[in-house]
């Protein structure tokens, strides 16, 4: 019995002494941190997606407090979170416009045809190295899902040969756009009303041959637009969202219905 008491006492006293020493040392050598870092960090989403360009949410929180990054540096934050961070930092801040990923391709399995039987690594970035597009169209989505793999929010999936974005889940971090070897994914304003679902720069007849859902570059949309928001460059229509009012006239007249109202 005695041994038990002695052992308990020895361990207990050592623990107490070390505890006191730790408290004393931590008080004496305390590193002063800005408490705002913690607060800002809490307001951030915490996905560590890296879309801001920093190593993670901790890093960008520190950068915001040090003034190295703007208050709305996090592209994933919604307006509320940005306002909260603004309050912590004592500045007025407006959330950057919410952006979502958009896949410029509608060439599903039934609209375009397979050119070759691709054998190899099931990854878009490996498939483009083969030099040949698996599909008839040289510009379209390959459908191996490199974007879906890159997405940390589960907002992308490949359906019927084309990647599809779930806009409710998309945080606009842009990782998918970097992963896509064809450069099909663009970040567009979440409140967009018009979008061109094609990326082919081929001329009209070649596009028609390759895919029934391709932009022919006919330019009817550009003629319809009263706000000069839509331009045809390199046989492909492009929407300037700073000018687009979303009237939908272009989509109405598009002969191949590649311009869509969303």
């Amino acid at each position, binding site marked *: 019995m005695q041994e038990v008491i002695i052992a308990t006492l020895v361990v207990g006293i050592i623990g107490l002494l070390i505890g006191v020493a730790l408290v004393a040392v931590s008080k004496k050598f305390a590193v002063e941190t800005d408490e705002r870092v913690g607060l800002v960090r809490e307001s951030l989403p915490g996905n560590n997606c890296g879309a801001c360009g920093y190593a993670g949410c901790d890093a960008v929180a520190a950068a915001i407090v040090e003034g190295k990054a703007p208050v709305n540096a996090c592209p994933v934050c919604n307006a509320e979170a940005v306002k909260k961070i603004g309050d912590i930092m004592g500045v007025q801040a407006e959330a950057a416009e919410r952006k979502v990923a958009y896949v410029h391709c509608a060439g599903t399995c039934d609209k375009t045809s397979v*050119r*070759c039987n691709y054998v*190899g690594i099931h990854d878009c970035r490996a498939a483009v190295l083969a030099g040949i597009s698996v599909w008839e169209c040289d510009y379209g989505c390959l459908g191996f899902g490199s974007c879906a793999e890159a997405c940390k929010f589960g907002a992308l999936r490949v359906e019927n040969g084309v990647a599809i974005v779930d806009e409710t889940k998309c945080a606009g971090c842009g990782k998918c756009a970097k992963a896509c070897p064809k450069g099909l994914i663009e970040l567009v304003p979440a409140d967009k009303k018009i979008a061109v679902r094609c990326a082919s720069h081929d001329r009209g007849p070649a596009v028609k041959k390759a895919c029934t859902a391709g932009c022919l570059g006919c330019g009817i949309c550009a003629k319809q637009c009263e706000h000069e928001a839509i331009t045809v460059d390199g046989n492909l229509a492009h929407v300037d969202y700073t000018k687009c009012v979303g009237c939908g006239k272009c989509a109405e007249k598009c002969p191949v219905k590649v311009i869509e109202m969303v």
Partner: protein
Amino acid sequence: MFKKTFKGGVHPDDGKRYAKDASYRAYLPQGELVFPMSQHIGKPAKPLVKKGDTVLAGQLIGEADGFVSANIVSSCSGTVKAVENRRTASGAKVMSVVIENDGQYTLAEGIGVERDYKMLGKEEILGSIQKAGIVGMGGAGFPVHVKLAPKNADEIRYIIANGAECEPYITCDDQLMRTKSMELAEGMRILLKLFPAAEGVFLIEENKPEAIAAMEKACAGDEKLKVHAAKCKYPQGGERSIIQVIAGIDLKLGMLPADAGCVVDNVATIYAIYQAVCKSIPLMERGFTVSGDVVKEPCNLIVKIGTNMAEVLETAGGIRDGKEAEKYLSGGPMMGMALADLNVPICKNNNALTVLGEDPVAKAEQQETACLRCGRCTRVCPLGLSPQEMMDAAKRRRFVRYEKKLYGLECIACGSCTYVCPAKRPLMQTFKQTKAEIMAKKRAAQAQQGGAKK
């Protein structure tokens, strides 16, 4: 007998039995010929002709854009049908001159004039090589006039003619050495004129005894020319492997062949040099093997550059009756590129069309399992890399480790590791992809830096 060889390497079925003894025959193409402006490493050539122009065989149709670039010469006479983007064997669409062949092959002025190389100076020889648009014809397509102008020209000890032809199925270099051995020896003497301190070595794999005998006969009596019969092992024809065998030097990271005192050229390139210097014939045709287990009459052809591949397969009799072609390859099965469609032109650096009845890659894909840690990939890598670790780093996208610790960018994509892997993992394919991604990142970073400076 013990033979000096390089470390690593594999012994795939060489498949040479199909076309080995089919002697060269010339094939004259019909219809249109396509001349991509980029058949080499470096800047694409600038097209000199436009739609409707009449051209003669041997006429310059694409002018080299800068030093690291190569001239493109028409291989037939006819009219220019179009100057547009056409697909090549690599799959990319490249700006090309399309010529409607008139079937006459009328030569342009000055082609075929015999010259004595002994009367020519260094500059003249290099000039005529550059003018002829000769590129490395073994596959890489590096402009030869650049290769022949190293900074340390006096320190070059070996000019190596690469006749290893280690790639399975391909036999066109074998035929070239058997039939044009005298010309090859002359071609080598031309190069020795450029590098007086060097000796010329023909490196041939042991499985080509006829070629070795022919070359030995052609080189007899000239003490500066030698024939080296190398052990039959893939990738014997790789530049590093060759230098290891001949000069005994293991090229270190970032070293060029010239740093080891070597210049390595394919035998087909040497033949082209002979033609350009002694006969004033620019690079218009090359040896080409059509082979594979389902080809009716595997053959070795002398084809005009720009000939359509489908046409070439037709002249080889097409596919054997009752068989089906599963895979078309530009090149051989180890390093060749799979072709999605045969409607592509033969470029200066395409040496073969291989047609296989079954697709081993597709089969392997179904059998892929996890790494067994057997280490065979490391043992066979001719560069001494560690493919298993590289694969791990590539999968985790740890690119810095891949590049700086594992020297993954040194990979020559010979495919030896993939060939031996018992787990059937797509090693080489992954390395190719990773290399492309890292290079793309580097280019992007460079472009950004350049932009910032401006």
